[in-house]
């Protein structure tokens, strides 16, 4: 059985002492940054990119992935205990999670989050195992036309599905695409928008963007807010009752299914998945009336969803070479740095990387459940550090990290500029996530669009000639229709 052989290969790669060590390290770092406000997986992974040179492709991918889904786990802890989401994808967990804490059941909520995240991870893994080899082969049939529309789908989806204003979402995505054009043009080596500044020749820098827009801007925003974090000091019972178990499993499975789907959609991702799962619970769950008052489903569904979305996002990344969101894009960058070419055929060309990574994600989920449950008390202590002491440390470490990517101090200037802009975005209620998608997918989009138009001599109708292209176009049409529909509905 092919799948069995592949999984065995995966285990043999993932279970070497070296890889297990990096996996654990990734999970711990991930959980920690998930718990800490103001620093997230995007910033951290950016700062650790240079490491991929030193430790090698497979261990670094395992570790960086561990950081990513570890952060999902960590984010839930603060959502539940402090009503403060450590990660965007855990925002909705605050609703029922914090209520559970107030009812003395905070520990149970955390255990729930851990267990259902494991379920989410398993469901996503099954999906990856089953879907990737055929998808990988299917991807060979995709040409420039299909890729162009797929990316356009991503841009529009992220604007439409974003939690904020749709028009602003699309606008900021376009800003991102334009920023992505700064630097040397991929196909003809022409430099654009670098204005004779040598530091801009390679582009603005994804790490600079990420740290600036997500890190520095958040610090600027939080300085003025008064420290009002009340850490829960009461008893933390950690053992769910039988009734709890019976209720969390179905919600977890539903959440996992939704999450796996959202992870695949361009522009989707963990945050959207968690909202979607909660919305479905409200309609479908036996206990829907309890949602909002501390129902365990309110924690189980979104947490399962965000974890499975995080992991299923690896499918388009590995099989098509297309990142669905900013974190995936960074991982793509890390792979290029290590000389790995994700995309069609990776399952056959680099089976040890592919299956090793998949299995390590499964093991990582288990490690995280084991880590988080007993370590909750330690994370609480970390959170007791007053913000006024924390943010200068984060600021300084981020500067060091940004410098370390290229050993160029001017990168920090670029990051500072984006920090300033990012702060403006926050106060103007512009969602920054589409910008990252634009920066990363923009150059690819332009490249494929150019190539296609070159092949078909500028004929617009050529997009309708190919079946896959037509299918994707209809999907795009549906998203646009949905977008316009929600715009009109909001106005009424």
């Amino acid at each position, binding site marked *: 059985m092919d799948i069995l052989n592949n999984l065995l290969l995966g285990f043999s790669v993932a279970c070497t002492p070296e890889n297990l060590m990096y996996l654990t390290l990734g999970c711990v770092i991930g959980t920690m940054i998930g718990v800490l406000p103001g620093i997230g997986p995007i910033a951290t992974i950016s700062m650790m990119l240079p*490491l991929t040179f030193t430790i090698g492709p497979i261990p670094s991918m395992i570790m960086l992935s561990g950081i990513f889904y570890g952060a999902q786990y960590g984010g839930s802890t603060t959502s539940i205990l402090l009503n403060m989401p450590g990660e965007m994808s855990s925002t909705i967990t605050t609703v029922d999670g914090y209520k559970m804490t107030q009812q003395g059941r905070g520990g149970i909520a955390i255990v729930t989050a851990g267990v259902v995240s494991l379920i989410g991870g398993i469901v996503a893994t099954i999906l990856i195992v089953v879907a990737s080899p055929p998808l990988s082969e299917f991807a060979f049939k995709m040409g420039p036309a299909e890729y162009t529309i797929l990316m356009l789908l991503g841009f529009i989806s992220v604007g439409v599905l974003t939690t904020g204003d749709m028009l602003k979402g699309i606008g900021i995505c376009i800003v991102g695409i*334009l920023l992505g054009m700064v630097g040397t*043009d991929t196909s003809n080596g022409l430099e654009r928008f670098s204005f004779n500044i040598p530091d801009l020749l390679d582009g603005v820098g994804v790490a600079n963007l990420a740290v600036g827009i997500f890190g520095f801007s958040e610090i600027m925003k939080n300085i003025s807010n008064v420290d009002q974090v009340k850490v829960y000091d009461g008893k933390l019972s950690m053992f769910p009752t039988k009734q709890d178990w019976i209720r969390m499993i179905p919600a977890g499975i539903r959440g996992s299914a939704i999450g796996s789907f959202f992870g695949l959609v361009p522009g989707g991702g963990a945050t959207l998945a968690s909202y979607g799962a909660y919305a479905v619970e409200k309609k479908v769950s036996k206990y829907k009336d309890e949602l909002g008052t501390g129902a365990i489903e309110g924690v189980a569904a979104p947490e399962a969803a965000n974890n499975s979305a995080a992991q299923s996002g690896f499918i388009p990344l590995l099989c098509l070479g297309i990142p669905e969101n900013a974190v995936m894009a960074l991982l793509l960058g890390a792979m290029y740095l290590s000389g790995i070419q994700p995309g069609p055929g990776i399952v056959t060309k680099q089976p040890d990387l592919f299956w090793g990574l998949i299995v390590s994600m499964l093991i990582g989920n288990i490690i995280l459940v084991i880590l988080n449950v007993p370590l909750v008390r330690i994370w609480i202590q970390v959170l007791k550090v007053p913000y006024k002491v924390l943010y200068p*440390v984060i600021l300084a470490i981020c*500067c060091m990290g940004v*410098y370390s990517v290229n050993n160029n101090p001017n990168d920090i*200037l670029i990051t500072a500029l984006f920090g300033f802009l990012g*702060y403006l975005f926050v106060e*103007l209620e512009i969602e920054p996530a589409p910008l990252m998608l634009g920066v990363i997918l923009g150059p690819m989009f332009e490249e494929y669009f150019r190539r296609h138009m070159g092949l*078909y001599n500028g004929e617009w109708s050529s997009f309708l000639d190919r079946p896959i292209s037509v299918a994707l176009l209809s999907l795009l049409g549906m998203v646009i229709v949905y977008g316009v529909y929600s715009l009109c509905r909001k106005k009424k």
Partner: protein
Amino acid sequence: MKNQKDFGSGLLFIIVGLFFGLASLRYEMGTLSNMNAGYMPLVLGIALCVLGLFIVIRSFHSEETKANINWKIAFYITGLLVLFVVVFKSVGGIVAAVLLVYTSAYIHKEFNFKKTTYAAIVVVFSVLVFKFLLGSEIPLWIS
């Protein structure tokens, strides 16, 4: 009856769209079937301007919303980061980092020198970690 947040957003989009659109005029456009460097940025710049204009107009017909931009903090922190780079290049990483810690902590309402010193110690430690464990080429002290 102005939605300040939307007005600001639209204005921002118009400025960025104009910036890239005008900048793209310095490059060759090419044709649709043979696009050159300036084509896409110009198209996108125009699209962004149009979108921004639409958002600005829309902001006049929305409910009153104020934008709470704390320019003082924004410029202060950004300025500190620039200072950091200057000090980093002239004196070295450790001094720059410590200076950043104290100056950035200073602006907080409840600034406490002693507690900030703990932060400074943690930061010095992490600079060393970056240099010696992660292989970053941080100049610790420039004489």
